């Protein structure tokens, strides 16, 4: 039956030759597990599209209804927890998978001639996915959504000359509210998907048209001495033809892609069903005790704000964002050396390693539990009240103890060994430099705090 349908269609459209050409075309040797991240990105994007479309059936983009509609989806609609969970978790995993895919492309030098445009469309896709993430997490309109958007749009406000406009265009005015939610929704479900489809199509077209880049060889294939005088394009084509000769048909490697997609899907399904979609309380612009924190993939940037201070901070923020975006987009133009093997590109590899360590390190630092919502650990019942004071008095906002807390002031994990009780008391009551004085602290709170700090040896 199926065969008859296919042959009926094929007799009219003659598609089979195209399809077989696509599957049977040779790809270079060594296209293996490292290459699954590209197709995994595509798979996750499709997953986002499908679950996102279904979510709009129940989701209501208004400040009054958004939160309740999400609660309704995850609490009442059959499989709502699953659908919303898959949307949320595949978004997070998408950010990781795209990162690995770009790193793989970088290490293999696959952005070099003749694939510069493929890299650029890929970099645009990364920016689009981050824009999806930023607009997407306002939509549930919970506390995290509201405050992350306040901070995120203020970061846009840091741009010189046009900062005010950028901020207002994002918020739809100066307030974060109904107008902001409405336009984030419009961007999230219409503008960004349209742009995404265009760029994915362009990216895939280039990948198929040019073929997958051969894994780099330390010693390039010998084209013969006559080849040196050939034009670049011809030399490249000869080389690629040789790579394909020793390669295998494309359909062989598809199986790896499918297996990896299946594993991702299972992991996402498990996360969706077990953890679901954690919601914070509804957005409350007046909750002055709330400590804003972004989604994990923006934590690195949030943490960076600790280190950029002073009058020129807005300019630094702008230059760093602009610099990173341009470095990504223009990579194939400033790194034009013909070498592709990582062993022959030590500078590039060191830069990549520094970049990866910086992103992971900042994410880790930003990801420690926000001090102001949690007391640091105390050694026993006698010092527990002091640990609570440490949080209640907002000391934890600036000081880290045992890995918990802020970084504006010194780490106090062993302060009991360094300062006497009197020194500590003086320090707290009088302050020094950027350490604020706490002259009005109640005697009980102060002695509890001192007991606690003294116990930190």
């Amino acid at each position, binding site marked *: 039956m199926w065969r008859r349908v296919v042959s009926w269609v094929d007799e009219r459209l003659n598609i089979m030759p195209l399809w077989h050409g696509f599957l049977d075309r040779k790809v270079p040797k060594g296209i293996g597990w490292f290459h699954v991240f590209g197709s995994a990105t595509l798979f996750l994007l499709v997953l986002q599209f499908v679950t996102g479309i279904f979510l709009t059936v129940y989701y209501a983009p208004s400040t009054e209804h958004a939160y309740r509609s999400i609660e309704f989806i995850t609490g009442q609609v059959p499989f709502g927890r699953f659908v919303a969970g898959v949307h949320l978790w595949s978004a997070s995993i998408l950010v990781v998978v795209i990162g690995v895919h770009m790193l793989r492309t970088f290490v293999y030098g696959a952005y070099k001639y003749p694939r510069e445009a493929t890299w650029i469309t890929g970099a645009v896709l990364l920016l689009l996915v981050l824009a999806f993430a930023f607009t997407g997490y306002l939509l549930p309109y919970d506390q995290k959504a509201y*405050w992350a958007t*306040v*901070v995120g749009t*203020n*970061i846009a*406000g*840091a*741009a*010189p*000359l*046009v900062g*005010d*406009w950028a*901020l*207002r*265009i994002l918020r*739809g*005015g*100066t*307030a974060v*509210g*109904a*107008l902001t939610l409405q336009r984030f929704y419009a961007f999230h479900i219409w503008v960004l998907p349209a742009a995404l489809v265009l760029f994915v199509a362009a990216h895939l077209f280039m990948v198929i048209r040019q073929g997958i880049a051969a894994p780099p060889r330390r010693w390039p294939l010998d084209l013969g001495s006559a080849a040196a005088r050939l034009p670049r394009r011809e030399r490249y084509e000869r080389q690629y033809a040789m790579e394909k000769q020793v390669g295998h048909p494309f359909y062989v490697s598809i199986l790896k892609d499918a297996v990896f997609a299946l594993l991702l899907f299972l992991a996402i399904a498990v996360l969706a069903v077990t953890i679901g979609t954690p919601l914070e309380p509804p957005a409350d*612009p*007046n909750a*002055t*005790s709330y*400590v*804003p924190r972004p989604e994990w993939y923006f934590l690195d940037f*949030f943490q960076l*704000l*600790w280190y*950029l*201070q*002073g*009058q*020129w*901070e*807005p*300019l630094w923020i*702008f230059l760093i964002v602009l610099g990173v975006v341009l470095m990504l987009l223009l990579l194939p133009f400033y790194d034009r050396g013909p070498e592709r093997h990582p062993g022959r590109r030590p500078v590039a590899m060191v830069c990549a390693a520094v970049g990866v360590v910086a992103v992971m390190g900042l994410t880790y630092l930003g990801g420690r539990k*926000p001090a*102001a919502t949690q007391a640091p650990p105390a050694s026993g019942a006698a010092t527990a009240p002091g640990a609570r004071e440490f949080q209640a*008095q*907002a000391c934890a*906002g*600036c000081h880290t103890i045992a890995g918990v807390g*802020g970084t*504006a*002031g010194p780490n106090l994990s062993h302060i009991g060994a360094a300062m006497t009780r009197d020194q500590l008391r003086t320090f707290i009551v009088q302050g020094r430099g*950027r*350490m*604020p*004085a*706490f*002259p*009005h*602290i*109640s005697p009980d*709170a102060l002695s509890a705090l001192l007991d606690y700090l003294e116990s930190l040896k």
Partner: protein
Amino acid sequence: MSSTAPESEIKPTRREAVMSALGAIVGFIGAALAAPLLVFLFGPAVRGTTIGGLLGRSIPPTPRPREPWTRVGDLGGLQQGEPTITTVQMPVQEGWIQSTVPVAVYVLRTGADSVTIFDVHCTHMGCPVTWNHAAGRFLCPCHGGVFNSDGRVLSGPPPRPLDRYAVRVDGGAVYMGALQLPGT
């Protein structure tokens, strides 16, 4: 003359001419559509603002009041020297929505007849600041900003003092007006 020219010579020029015409038409329609669409998208948001300086800045996300003055409370109930968090029922206008929403502000009595009203958002990135009684300071939980009770920056990254609202004291009652953002 042209009828005698070989096809291969005439076709490209004709094709190019058609493509140029097509490009011009598509370009015209695109521009004629894009200009109003962009203004549609951005216009209401940026109305009345001008180009900024070399240093950008944050803006509090608080909704703007619909009426010039909103009653905050009685002067008598306010302690001197200690800012108190107060929630004001403020009539606001957001696009097509008219409503009255609670807006939290810090109210500080500074003298017999004088009151200062602070917006609650840190001027660094807009996180909510809390008044810490023991320290006598506003502390911001996000990046360690510290303000004194006048809203002056004592330490941390905030680039300017806490934003204030216009205040009117009238017959023992305190009213708040527009947010006074520097440079607007």
